[in-house]
Every structure is written in structure tokens, then in C-alpha cells.
């Protein structure tokens, strides 16, 4: 991992990229909402020190909310199908947080195993992830509970950290990162200064929610597919898609046809396990007829099933679902409570012995 000092600030970095004709996606305001969007003017890119995180994650640039995958036309017996074009122009996602960069390394597994989803893979291949370590966290962040830190390099092509004087240092973590530095060599200079244990990020860590015991959580989940706690947790869940749609690691989708006259598109659209229709059969049978079962699926998938399958936790602690949930059904609180139940059980067992 090479380290480079950035001789300018963030806005100048964005400007330099634009000047080189790069396609830059970065956090910017759409009204009051901070979202990733294409940057036309460097000043539109909101400086990382001014936000904790965006409302939506960066996943939509690789796995969009809606994306055509097949096109077709039909006139009587004459039917044709075409591949939809993958929107795979090279792009740079600037100003994303380590939790969002890490999320891609987690969902890469599902999009690539067995069958390769080229719509995901192509965009992923052509996207350079330039993350900025977090100078602030908020009450919802809990990346340190799932093996990450405010300055984790996981998934980033280039990771920026700041020294105490406010200078930016870039850690290049991949070939793509190196390429980007080479492109902007006039504003970067190689250095040996290392902020791996930067005190600033230790402080951010200190303000975060206490780490979760993911091993214990998984142990409990392994044993408690049936447990009255699920009803208790989910009794107030509204069954919306907020948590899943904002989550950088949720990856479920629907496939629908849309038509106009005698041609049409087949689209991949975000979908969520919290909707009753997600699993409803045409016969009326529904394997998850109650919200408690749907909410259980969410927690199980994040902290157990994905682990069982791909050996990774399906959560980066970005806190988006916590911030957005209309009823404050806080996944961190939920999984902490089950670990408490776990220890309670053990004390009871010990007492029996």
C-alpha cells in the first residue's frame, strides 16, 4: 500500500478529476437531501468533513434501483430479444465512507458466485472507489461492531486520511487507485508518513456504539429461528422498504416487464424481504405471512445466513437503517438484546448445574 500526500483540498481534487474529463459521482445536496450524484461543478461536491454519510448508499451506481436487463419486441409471431446495454462507463465514486466501500466487497460474492451478474460486475469493474475516513460518526454508526473502522481500507481503491494539520493523505489499495493517482500526479506526492493508527480516528471510534459480539449473536441465531422475541421485535415494524433500500448490503430484487405498444423492457428493481408480496405464492400460500417472520429474515440474513453461505456478515454498520426506520426499530439494539438473552440463558444453565 503506497501513501501519497494530496497537495490540495477536496474541492480541488474534485476539480482536477473533472478537468481530466472523469465521470465523478460524489455526495451533493438535492434539496435538503444529501445523495450521491454526478458532479458537474467541483463546488457541488460537499466536503467530507461536512457530513457523516449520505442518505442513500453508493450501491445504486453498481446495483441501481431500477435497471433494464433485457429488451424485446413482439409483433404477432415475430419476437426478438436483445441485451440491454450495461451502463458501464468508467466512473469515480468520490467521498464515500469506508462502510460503503466495504459493502461492495460483501455483495460481490452473491452477484458473482455460480452465475455472474454482468450488470453488476461490469459496473463494479469500471468504478473506482475513493473513500474518505470519517472525522465524525453519529449515534447510529456501528462499523466497529462488524469488524470495520472509520478508516478501514476494505473495498476502497484509494482511501484518504487526514493528519492533525488537515492535510489529506491517500492510501492506494489497488491498481485502480494507483491509476487515479498517476492521472493526477501533479497534485499528489509519494510519502512514507503513515497514519494507520491516526489518533483522530481512534477518537471517532471511541464515540461509537460499543462493539457487538457477532459470534454470540450468531450462536443465538443458530438456535433461535423460533423464539417469542421475534414477535416482540417486529410487533411495531411497519413492513416498509426503508431499511433494505438504504442499506448498502441489501441486494434483493424483483424482475418485471414494462411495455409500450409492441416492445418493452425487462427490469431488475430493488425489492425487500420486509414486503409481504416478496414471498407470496400465486396459490395464496406465504412462507412468511407475518411481519415477525419477515423481520426475522432480515436479522437472520444479515447476521447468520450470509455468514453461513459466504462467510461474511451482511452489514457494515453504516447506520442507515437505524436513522431511517420510521419506528426506530434499531437493528443494533435488536442484536444486542439477543446477546443479552444469550448470557441470561447461560446464567440460568449454570445455576441448574
Amino acid at each position, binding site marked *: 500500500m503506497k501513501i501519497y500526500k494530496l497537495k490540495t483540498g477536496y474541492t480541488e481534487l474534485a476539480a482536477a478529476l473533472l478537468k481530466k474529463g472523469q465521470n465523478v459521482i460524489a455526495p451533493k445536496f*438535492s*434539496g*435538503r*437531501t444529501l*445523495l450521491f450524484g454526478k458532479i458537474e461543478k467541483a463546488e457541488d461536491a460537499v466536503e467530507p468533513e461536512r457530513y457523516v454519510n449520505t*442518505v*442513500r448508499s453508493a450501491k445504486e451506481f453498481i446495483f441501481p*434501483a*431500477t435497471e433494464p436487463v433485457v429488451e424485446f419486441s413482439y409483433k404477432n409471431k415475430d419476437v426478438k430479444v436483445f441485451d440491454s446495454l450495461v451502463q458501464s462507463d468508467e466512473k469515480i465514486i468520490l467521498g464515500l465512507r469506508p462502510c460503503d466501500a466495504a459493502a461492495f466487497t460483501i455483495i460481490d460474492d452473491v452477484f458473482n458466485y455460480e452465475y455472474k451478474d454482468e450488470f453488476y460486475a461490469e459496473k463494479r469493474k469500471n468504478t473506482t472507489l475513493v473513500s474518505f475516513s470519517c472525522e465524525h460518526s453519529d*449515534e*447510529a454508526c456501528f462499523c466497529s461492531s462488524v469488524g470495520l473502522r472509520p478508516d478501514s481500507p476494505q473495498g476502497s481503491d484509494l482511501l484518504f486520511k487526514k493528519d492533525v494539520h488537515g492535510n489529506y493523505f491517500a492510501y492506494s489499495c489497488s491498481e485502480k487507485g494507483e491509476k487515479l493517482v498517476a492521472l493526477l500526479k501533479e497534485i499528489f506526492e509519494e510519502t512514507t508518513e503513515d497514519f494507520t493508527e491516526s489518533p483522530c480516528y481512534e477518537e471517532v471510534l471511541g464515540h461509537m456504539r460499543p462493539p457487538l459480539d457477532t459470534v454470540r449473536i450468531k450462536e443465538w441465531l443458530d438456535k433461535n429461528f423460533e423464539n417469542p422475541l421475534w414477535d416482540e421485535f417486529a*410487533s*411495531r415494524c*411497519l*413492513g*416498509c*422498504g*426503508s431499511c*433494505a*433500500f*438504504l442499506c448498502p448490503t441489501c441486494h434483493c430484487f*424483483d424482475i*418485471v416487464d*414494462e411495455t409500450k405498444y409492441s416492445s418493452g423492457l425487462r*427490469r431488475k*428493481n*430493488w425489492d*425487500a424481504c420486509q*414486503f409481504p*408480496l416478496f414471498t407470496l405464492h400465486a396459490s395464496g400460500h406465504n412462507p412468511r405471512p407475518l411481519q415477525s417472520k419477515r423481520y426475522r429474515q432480515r436479522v437472520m440474513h444479515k447476521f447468520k445466513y450470509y455468514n453461513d453461505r459466504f462467510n461474511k456478515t451482511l452489514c457494515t454498520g453504516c447506520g442507515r437503517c*437505524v*436513522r*431511517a426506520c*420510521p*419506528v*426506530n*426499530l*434499531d437493528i*443494533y*439494539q435488536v442484536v444486542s438484546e439477543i446477546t443479552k438473552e444469550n448470557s441470561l440463558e447461560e446464567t440460568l444453565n449454570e445455576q441448574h448445574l
Partner: protein
Amino acid sequence: MSNDKISAEVKKLAGELLESGKVSAVVGYAEGTLKGRVQTFIARKASETEKFIFNQNCANNLAVYLTKSYNIISAGKPVAVFLKPCDIKSVTALIQEHQLKREDIFIIGLSCQGVLNDSGPAGKCRACSMHNPQYYDALIGGVVEEKEPEVTDPFARVKEIESMTTSECWEFWMKEFDKCVRCYACRQACPLCYCEQCIVDKTRPRWIESSAHPIGNLGWHLIRAFHLAGRCIGCGECERVCHQNIPLSLLNMKMSKEIFDLYGYTAGMDEGAKPPLTEFKMEDNEEFIR
């Protein structure tokens, strides 16, 4: 009355209601995990009522839990629910629409000084002239003084939009709708979006495209606004829960304004009234109906 005192009152009342077996559950608020946020909480045992609180962060309209899909109302025993004066309007509307029976619920009416959102007093509260519950089974917080609202014209924001040219207006809304990801939190939080199958989920035929693209989003928001015309009671939950900050109340308020101008009707005020779009009167001014 201070928040602590009010919270103590709701805990006590909820405890008594469950202890005495008068109600089967109490739907209320509990401490949240984030600043300025509370949790909704459903207690079924008196021992759980310690969790209840009431303060200015209690924005959620709990009437949504009284709709059928929550299946919370079991025969025989009422369910107690915390309701602010504006939330009670949704109960009125649900009763009007035969979704709820008055005797199935025990209303813990909360007099209210307004609730907060992320940036200060909620918009609806700034124009509110109803700080005391219209009716209730128990009143918490005493009777508070009704003062002149800070914003005297509840339709002021709507009028701003109305003053735009058609193309400005189109641009304004298309830009807002563009942010929509179709999570349906707005629908799920709405006490009046209780349809067993929402039109947006119907596939035979598919009336509204489910994709989060301009046409799909436009279709979704217009249809929802029309379905709530003369029914939306203005609790503002849809706008509050929309993480994309789409000003959904504006759409609903526009419809409320039209309904008021046409029929002099305000939703959620009178159990006995018929919402104008569900009935037909000879004096209705549309020629085509006659």
C-alpha cells in the same frame, strides 16, 4: 406540565389499564436510540409499561397500528392507544370508513404542545389550532391553552406552489419524485393507506409501474394523492418518514384544499360525516354526474 410528569402519568395509566384487564394492549411511545427519536411500543403486560414516555419527540401517529393488518384488536377487549389531537382525526376517519369501531379502542388523549422534527417544530404543528384532543377516554397532560398558530393559513405552502407556472410546478415535482426509491414507507406509515392490496401492488393489470423511474414515481405519487383526497387528515407521517425528504404533505394538502374549496369539507372532524368523494349529492357541482 413537565415531560417527566406526563411520562409518569402515562406509565401509571397504562399500567392500571393492563393490570385491571380493561384493555388487551397499550400502544404508545418509548425512549428511542437516537437523539430526538422515540420508539413505538406495544405493551401487553403491566410490567412493560415502565417503558412508556411522552414528550415533544413523539411524532409518530400510532393510529396506523389500529388498521386491520396489525390484527391488534381482538374481540372482546379494547386496545388502548396514545393519541395526540391530530392523531385522533385519523381515528375519526377510520371510524367513518368502517375500519374501526369506537368501542374497540380506549383513547389515551394527549394534550399536545407540538412535536419536533430534525429542524425544529414540525410544519403541521406551526399551523395547528387544536392542541387538545377532540374526544378521549382518558386525558393526559390536562387542558392546554389554545393559542393563535404561528402560521395562520394552513395552505400557505400550497399557495406558493400554486403560484408557480405549470412548467415550474412540473419541474419542481419531477425533481422531488426523482428521489423516490419506492420503499413505500409513506404508505406504510399512513393510517388511511390501509388497503389490503394497494393499487401499486396490483399486477392484473399493472396500473402503476413499480420501477423507481420518472413515470413510475409520478404515477405512484399522483395516485396516492388522489386516493387520499378528502381522506388525508394531515398528520404528516408520510412526509416525516420519507428519508428522501420529499414534501408529500404538500401534495396531500393541495388535495385537502381542493376538497375544502369544492365541498367545504375537512377530513377527520366528524364521525358521522361522509367523505365527499364517497357519496353523491344532487347539489354537487359537476354537471356530468347528473
